[in-house]
């Protein structure tokens, strides 16, 4: 650590402890600590430092941001909120409703965010007509990743329907390959369930069940069918799935031990790291029956109110985040697609290009939905209540019928 930097950090700490407004630093609470992500974020940091805005880093990893959200709560309660905080979906809305977030409308108007950010995303970045956070990316979660060599060897093409998919699973099983690589953690079970539910219920049913929390849809026969399909998927994963990290499941597909994995677009980074080429070594396609839909989750940076209005640094940070160059540079690394639809896809690979095309199409046709599994359909309490049921069913604790009843009950307690 250089002397300058440690001085700067001390200065920031003094400013914080005195409760005074910070001069020209942004303090950023985030959970992007893995190599690629952090390197991508560093682009943003250098951009800001070029404009004379210092960056005080406050990384807290763990549980897809859960740990950071706990820290955030402690910081806000202490009256010591960071300047900018990575946030997801309903967390942003919750904080906005607490009146904790700053109004970014001035920057947004100046930069024309309203024209370039899809409406479905705005639902999580604007509250009561006010921009409160700056979206960084859009992850879509209804992808299937496949090992092309394994599929070719067994004469399997890209499955377009559930029936074709189950047939492919049968073929793989008969060939002695684990059909589906899966990690048994609640959020992964729910990610798969997201896609399955979308394919069974259709976009309207998905919205009724997970956004409007309509009891009839949650308890419907279609929902039971969704759970039945989850049971089929369960029957096609290996015995050793529970507790496995998602990247180890991805490694199974990379190594040809397994055929498919249902996972968000961040899985692509694992393939690229293993020097695999999209389209040649591995395939990416939408979960069968959800070709027109995109379920998404989006990382954003919430700007916390530091006393009245948006500070100069926050405005600079926000506009840097939404700048097309950062959007492209960051998302190429992260595997996601830009939050604004006017960014050039030149630097993206085949899967990235398809992701951008799908997103634009889904946004235009009203088929872009927040992912339930990733906190973009319903508040955290409901999301976790759904997790409980899905994961209990997936692990054989409930049959499909019980699962449907439990789902209705759990959602009603959590609401």
């Amino acid at each position: 650590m250089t002397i300058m930097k440690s001085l700067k950090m001390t200065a920031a700490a003094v400013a914080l402890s005195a409760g005074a407004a910070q001069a020209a630093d942004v303090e950023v609470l985030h959970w992007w600590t893995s190599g690629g992500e952090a390197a991508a974020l560093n682009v943003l940091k250098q951009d800001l430092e070029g404009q004379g805005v210092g960056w005080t880093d406050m990384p807290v990893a763990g549980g897809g941001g859960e740990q950071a959200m706990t820290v955030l709560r402690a910081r806000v309660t202490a009256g010591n909120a960071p300047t900018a905080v990575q946030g997801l979906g309903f967390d942003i809305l919750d904080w906005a409703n607490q009146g904790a977030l700053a109004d970014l409308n001035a920057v947004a108007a100046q930069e024309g965010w309203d024209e370039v950010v899809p409406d479905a995303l705005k639902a999580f970045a604007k509250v009561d007509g006010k921009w409160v956070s700056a979206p960084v990316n859009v992850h879509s979660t209804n992808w299937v990743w496949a090992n092309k060599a394994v599929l070719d060897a067994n004469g399997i093409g890209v499955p377009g329907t559930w029936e074709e998919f189950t047939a492919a699973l049968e073929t793989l099983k008969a060939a002695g390959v684990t059909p589906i690589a899966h990690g048994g953690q609640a959020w992964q079970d729910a990610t798969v369930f997201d896609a399955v539910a979308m394919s069974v219920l259709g976009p309207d049913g998905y919205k009724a069940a997970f956004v409007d929390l309509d009891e009839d849809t949650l308890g419907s026969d279609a929902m039971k069918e969704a759970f039945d399909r989850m049971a089929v998927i369960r029957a096609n994963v290996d015995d050793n799935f529970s507790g496995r990290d998602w990247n180890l499941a991805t490694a199974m597909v990379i190594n040809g031990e397994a055929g498919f994995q249902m996972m968000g677009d961040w899985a692509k980074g694992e393939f690229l790291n293993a020097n695999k080429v999209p389209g040649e070594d591995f395939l990416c396609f939408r979960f069968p029956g959800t070709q027109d839909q995109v379920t998404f989750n989006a990382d954003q940076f919430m700007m916390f109110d530091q006393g009245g209005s948006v500070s100069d640094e926050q405005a600079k940070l926000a506009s840097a985040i939404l700048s097309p160059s950062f959007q492209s540079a960051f998302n190429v690394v992260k595997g996601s697609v830009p939050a604004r639809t006017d960014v050039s896809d030149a630097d993206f690979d085949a899967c990235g290009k398809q992701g951008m095309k799908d997103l634009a199409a889904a946004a235009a046709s009203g088929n872009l939905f927040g992912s339930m599994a990733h906190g973009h359909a319903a508040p955290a309490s409901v999301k976790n209540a759904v997790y409980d049921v899905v994961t209990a069913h997936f692990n054989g604790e409930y049959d499909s019928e019980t699962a449907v009843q439990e789902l209705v009950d759990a959602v009603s307690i959590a609401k």
Partner: protein
Amino acid sequence: MARTADADFKTRLQNWIPKLVLSPTIAMMAVFVYGFILFSVYLSFTDSRLLPSFGWVGFENYSKLWRLSHWEVSLTNMGIFAALYILICTAIGLTLAIFLDQKIRGEGFLRPIYLYPMALSFIVTGTAWKWFLDPGIGLENIMQSWGWVNFSFDWIKNRDYAIYTIVLAAVWQTSGFVMAMFLAGLRGIDNEILKAAQMDGASNWNLYRRIIIPQLRPAFLSAFVILSHLAIKTFDLVIAMTGGGPGRATELPATFMYSYTFTRNQMGIGAASATIMLMTIAAIMIPYLYSELREKK
């Protein structure tokens, strides 16, 4: 006159100093422990979700809590976990201490090996355990590759047995510490009594059963306090090893409380579960503390 007044002041000061010395601690306890407990109990009757809020809802959070099947799971797990953990740690700790007390060569080498797990944080030893217990890469795989093809050890992946793997790792962490407590107790026993008993022809077994172990009572009680407090606070271990899974099979009250308060934004329910936990702790600890502290007078 002046001198006696001065002396008077001095004695009075001497009377007050002990209480003054104690007062910072008392003040801290009053605010940071008992004040916070009251606050938490109060929150359990409110509609707090993301942050504390003060809309009174009566017993709603409690009724919701008891409707949640996975609260019951976490309570059952706590019962299994605490009972086994405390029993096994005590048994292993006592056995090792007795064995180590037999003029063992290399005691100075073995003791730190038994003790070191206490020094490690579970953020990563959890990963080591997770690997070791994983049938795909761990013990099962190794035994099978050594020729025991039918060897099977998949507890961590099995809903009915996963909680026992948590016990295993927890025992690994603290049983050495318990050993140290018993060893200290053993070393403190007066040898003259033992020799006298031996003269009377008592066997080793009887010596331990009748004389030595009863004398270790204080060590048993200290071990019980330390172990039960660790059992109740067990959190990192579960997060690192199973994340509460498979399904919800290894959820404990501490993980339940954390998840409702912080990740599910249902602070009211989280506070209700904390209140119940505190009441349970009080129900166990108060009689114990009462008997312990009264006898010492």
